[in-house]
């Protein structure tokens, strides 16, 4: 761990694969920039990789004052141990006060390893980050300007605010799509600082033998309209209705965790805290009860229609339009209505 360092920078782990930045890193740059401005400190991105110096300019455009760039053939594809070594070395050297990671497959593998090695706190899957004070009644200490790490917990039934008062850096992972991506400013200036980290045999002990990537077939994030089904759809056969409605309005198909867990549809369609966070112009929630984890992933949608037989379903709390009824009857009416207009 490092001591609290009020002048410490706010950092973003810049995640790249195949020399392409993960968009979540740019979303986080926007948030980190705002946090750094509030604290009056610099904001930096850490970019490990192989021949990816070019990506630094996008990070700068999105708010980084510095990019700590590490070029090493050992860093070409992500592996836990060398990446964790890089983060730990740089954290020990520069003593940032905050380090945030995307809550991606990579971020959720890397951040806990780093946190353990640094003996620092880490909060997973935050849906909001703020700066605020923490009055610790147990030790009677007022900690000012801490990172408030806000996340749903307990199956989404509570929202917890977590702080890390004295074992710094304060670290968190943040879901993709939760922080709005701000447009980059190509005229912003920043500095690329080249760093070098040596690896030992243990760091390199895990070898990548084979690697296969599938392009994301489901473009939930880019969809203007999303029709999503939940456990209330009842069966894989019934889920065809969801596909059909999505087809008619030219939207993407989403799903709640319950629908994915029941095998109605693949995980790549999942909307929510453990899926994709979306903010389309129109979100139609069919047979979705609306656990907070799901709502966290869609409540920013411009318009929400909820169809559910249960008048008490929590989804209605975020809906703009509510239809209390059987989706097997309502959706066909909807399809007919849209077809009649087209």
């Amino acid at each position, binding site marked *: 761990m490092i001591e609290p360092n009020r002048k410490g920078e706010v950092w973003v782990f810049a995640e790249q694969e195949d020399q392409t930045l993960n968009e979540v890193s740019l979303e986080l740059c926007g948030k980190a920039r705002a946090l750094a401005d509030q604290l009056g400190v610099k904001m930096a991105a850490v970019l490990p990789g192989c021949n990816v110096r070019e990506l630094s300019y996008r990070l700068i455009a999105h708010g980084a004052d510095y990019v700590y760039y590490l070029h090493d053939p050992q860093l070409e594809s992500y592996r836990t141990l060398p990446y964790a070594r890089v983060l730990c070395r740089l954290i020990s050297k520069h003593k940032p006060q905050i380090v945030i990671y995307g809550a991606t497959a990579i971020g959720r593998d890397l951040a806990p390893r780093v946190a353990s090695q640094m003996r620092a706190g880490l909060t997973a899957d935050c849906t909001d980050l703020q700066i605020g004070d923490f009055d610790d009644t147990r030790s009677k200490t007022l900690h000012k300007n801490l990172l408030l790490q806000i996340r749903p917990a*307990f199956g989404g039934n509570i929202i917890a605010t977590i*702080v890390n008062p004295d074992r710094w850096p304060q670290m968190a992972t943040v879901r993709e799509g939760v922080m709005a991506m701000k447009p980059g400013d190509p005229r912003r200036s920043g500095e690329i600082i080249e760093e070098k980290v040596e690896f030992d045999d243990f760091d390199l002990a895990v070898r990548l033998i*084979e690697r296969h990537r599938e392009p994301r077939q489901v473009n939930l994030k880019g969809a203007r309209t999303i029709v999503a089904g939940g456990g209330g759809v009842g069966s894989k056969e019934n889920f065809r209705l969801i596909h059909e409605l999505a087809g008619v309005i030219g939207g993407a198909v989403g799903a709640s965790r319950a629908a994915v867990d029941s095998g109605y549809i693949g995980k790549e369609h999942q909307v929510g805290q453990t899926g994709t966070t979306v903010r389309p112009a129109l979100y139609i929630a069919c047979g979705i009860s609306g656990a907070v984890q799901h709502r966290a992933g869609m409540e920013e949608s411009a318009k929400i229609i909820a169809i559910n037989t249960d008048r008490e379903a929590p989804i209605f709390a975020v809906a703009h339009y509510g239809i209390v009824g059987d989706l097997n009857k309502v959706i066909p009416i909807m399809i007919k209505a849209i077809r009649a207009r087209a």
Partner: protein
Amino acid sequence: MGYDCVVCIKQVPDTARITGEAMKEDGTVNRAALPAIFNPEDLNALEAALHVRDRHGGTVTAMTMGPLNACEVLRDCLFRGADRTIIINDRRAAASDTLATSYILSRAIRTLPRYDLVFCGRQAIDGDTAQVGPQLAEKLGIAQVTYFERFVELDGRTARVRRNVGNGWEVVEARLPLLLTVLGSANTPRPPSARRVMRYKRARTEPEVGKEVAEAMPKASEQKREEEWARRLEALKMNGLVMDQWDLDHVEADLQWCGWAGSPTKVHRVQSIVLTKEGYTEIPPTEEGVHQLIHELIVDRTLG
């Protein structure tokens, strides 16, 4: 030969089954009303370990940290095929965050004479953090492979593992000992075997036996109870039915890294989600209602 496997298990409230009965008047969740279950992905971790043992020989030790009630999930491990169970049960471990938890688990695992593979479920459904696996690997000073789907090869001291990274998969090669976090999609957990249920349903930890004696003999003297406790324990021991219960002293844990003091993260505030009834426009589920809604959406350019 064979592999000595450790599986880390968590008993969790069944957050997926929040029904009307589990809600309080004010719309928040009554946590005590939720049933406690075997964390789903830990069942997949157990299955992965049992599979290794069945195929290559070795042992499977199931381990948990928590209150004595968590012995239920350990008995379930015995029913499904585990060779040994250990519960780390200590008041001083209460309020541990993921870092303190992984430290304590690492101390317990280091107490074992030998281990080759440590299996954890990817994440628990009460916190969904997925942090304990990687943190435990770091505390043990061994490599981690997260999102385990299956072994492509397990030969001698080398494992080739296929991991699912969401937008694809990879095969990585690592030397043992190794920690794996197992996905729900990795396998289908075997059910408890009737034969093993018959055999292990009486398995108990020492403090559980003490509790049962106290309940059975509320009026007896302390000495009488202790005699009964010793007698019952002896009978269980003869049948190999005593489950290990360890405390922090047994695992030689440094208390500065345990419990509240050992946890860098603190809960600042918890807000229960109150299901408020904000205004929404209710649309009747009729042709007319739905047509009117679609019309409205087209007029305000949400559709089309």
